[in-house]
């Protein structure tokens, strides 16, 4: 999943199968929603092929200049595709700095999120993908500070009680694979930032650290991190998937297209800054 194009192709394949299933089951509404997602994914695929995105996520020496000139939303998209799960701005910036060239700051991210929604509302579907908030599994309102990509299925964009951990482990796998790819590719291998990022994830996953605990990052084995993360993921996946699937079904039933991306309207009319005692 380290390559955005691969991920998109995988997601396109999944979507096609799902449409076939939905059509066979006679669920026209679901099929329509899936078709729309498929179109979005295909547009995203086209856009990526056209711009000739650097395929390996490792910092390639040549396209540095071009990579750094990408708009911020492309940076965010690339970081999220690497992680494969909804992520907070801080983590997105961390991944960007570890694996990709160019500038990306957390402050830029917050303005970006508002722009995305505005752009969608003025001409829906004009862009191949949108950056949108994750949705709470029960209220279907936007979750604080978690960013997703509109081309992801709703099941991946809703957050249940177990999802923060599941997404953490998924992200750990994404980062470990990217570090692994960077180590295999020619060049100087993974950046120190990338190793530090992986280390920060690995220390919080049971059995992900090498046995001789004295080592500091250098001896960290990305494969071991992947295996450890998968092992814990197995514990949570089923329960998490059940919640997310149910929430996604509910969202498709009760929310409009735009709300499925940007969340149900928030409950209160006003934000009270002074509400915190």
């Amino acid at each position, binding site marked *: 999943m380290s390559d955005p194009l691969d991920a998109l192709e995988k997601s396109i394949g999944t979507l096609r199968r799902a449409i076939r299933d939905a059509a066979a089951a006679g669920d026209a509404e679901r099929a329509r929603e899936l078709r729309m997602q498929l179109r979005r994914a295909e547009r995203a695929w086209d856009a990526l092929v056209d711009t000739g995105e650097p395929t390996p996520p490792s910092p390639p020496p040549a396209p540095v200049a071009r990579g750094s000139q990408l708009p911020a939303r492309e940076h965010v998209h690339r970081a999220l595709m690497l992680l494969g799960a909804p992520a*907070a701005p*801080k*983590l997105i910036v961390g991944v960007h700095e570890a694996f990709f060239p160019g500038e990306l700051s957390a402050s830029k991210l917050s303005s970006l999120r508002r722009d995305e929604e505005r752009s969608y509302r003025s001409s829906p579907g004009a862009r191949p993908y949108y950056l949108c908030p994750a949705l*709470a599994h029960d*209220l279907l*309102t*936007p*979750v*604080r500070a978690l960013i997703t990509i509109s081309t992801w299925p709703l099941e991946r964009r809703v957050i249940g*009680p*177990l*999802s*923060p*951990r599941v*997404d*953490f482990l998924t*992200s750990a796998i994404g980062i470990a694979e990217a570090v692994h790819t960077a180590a295999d590719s020619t060049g100087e291998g993974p950046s120190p930032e990338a190793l530090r990022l992986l280390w920060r*994830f690995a*220390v*919080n996953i*049971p059995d992900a650290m090498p046995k001789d605990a004295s080592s500091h990052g250098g001896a960290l084995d990305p494969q071991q991190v992947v295996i450890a993360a998968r092992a*814990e993921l197995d*514990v*949570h996946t089923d*329960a998490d998937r059940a919640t997310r699937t149910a929430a996604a079904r509910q969202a498709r039933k009760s929310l409009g297209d735009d709300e499925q991306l940007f969340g*149900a309207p*928030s*409950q*209160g009319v006003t*934000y*009270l*800054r002074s*509400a*915190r*005692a």
Partner: protein
Amino acid sequence: MKAPVDGRLAALRGSGKRLDYNARSLAALENNPRCTLRALLDASGSNKAAIAAHVGHPPAFGQSVFAITRGNAFEAMVKDNGCAELLRVLRETLELTLPEVAYEDLNDVGGNGRSDKRYERTEEVLLRAARGDGEGTLFDHPMLRLLIGGHPAYLEPDLVAFRIDGRFHVMEIKSFPIIDGQADPTQVRAATTQACAYIIALRDLLGRAGIGAEAVSDTIVLVAPKDFTNRPTAAFVDARKQVAALTRQLSRIERIGELVDLLPDDLTFDLYLDEDEQPRRPPEELAETLDQVLKTYRPDCLNHCEMAFYCRSRARAEASLDVLGPVVREQFGGIDTTTMVMGLARGELKPSEDQVEMAAALRHAARLRAELEDLGGAA
């Protein structure tokens, strides 16, 4: 609470907006329950900070931007990425099992950050968890409510209340370090005091749904940086004594009526605010009013009461032994001021009957000190 008392308290507060109890005023209650001034100001919901500032002793705490930023940064770090650091710590120290990772964010309700909404949502989520349906291990910033003297106070556990072995544990995330398993006792105490109010509020919430007090542990989980690193570790802190003390004080708060009855009828702490929220009351007059009320200053008031600097200046002006703290003060039972202590020590004052023993001890101490000074002078 009886209506006349409420009316009387409102008159004490005057024109200002009523302030509810918060974690700080509850800490003040627990630490200095006997102070009449504090009791009256808090019960009437007066703005202690404004009053203290108006009489020339503005409170100087809550001002360190660095400390607050540091605290928030540490808390954010602990909770980043689905509480990854926190889960590791809890798995290591509290033996949380692998599947116990469910996380519930109660910072707002679908974008609404109002206390009452958050309280309703917290109640719903926690009760569901307590009854065993619905997942939930970590609850981020739940909003609790405690009725104090008939008025609601909203309390937000500094961090997370969560569930191990079917019991709720209040957690405090603090940025002072635990070095070799030891932390600064004053800071630990401040943290536990705060957490006690949360325990009581949480028990109250569950209690109203018929769930017993044993569902909430008396033990607080303190999460703080380990040694000289920035990585968190956790420790249990036993808060039984403090919970009991605060529970007792809260049950006695109803007795505020007895204190109010002792006051002159026209006494008020009103600042007479004008339209721009500027106090119009002459500071001297306000100070005179404050002086009519008994206050019990202790050095640790500085940690949690806005009036502390004012009370300290008064205690100093009266040469009161309070300034030196309860340890010193208790040594001199029956003597209130440093002037009297010095007078007795120098033999300038004639001790009353119950002071005779103390006076002898003091004169002895003075003699020893004088001898030492002579030796020092000769050397």
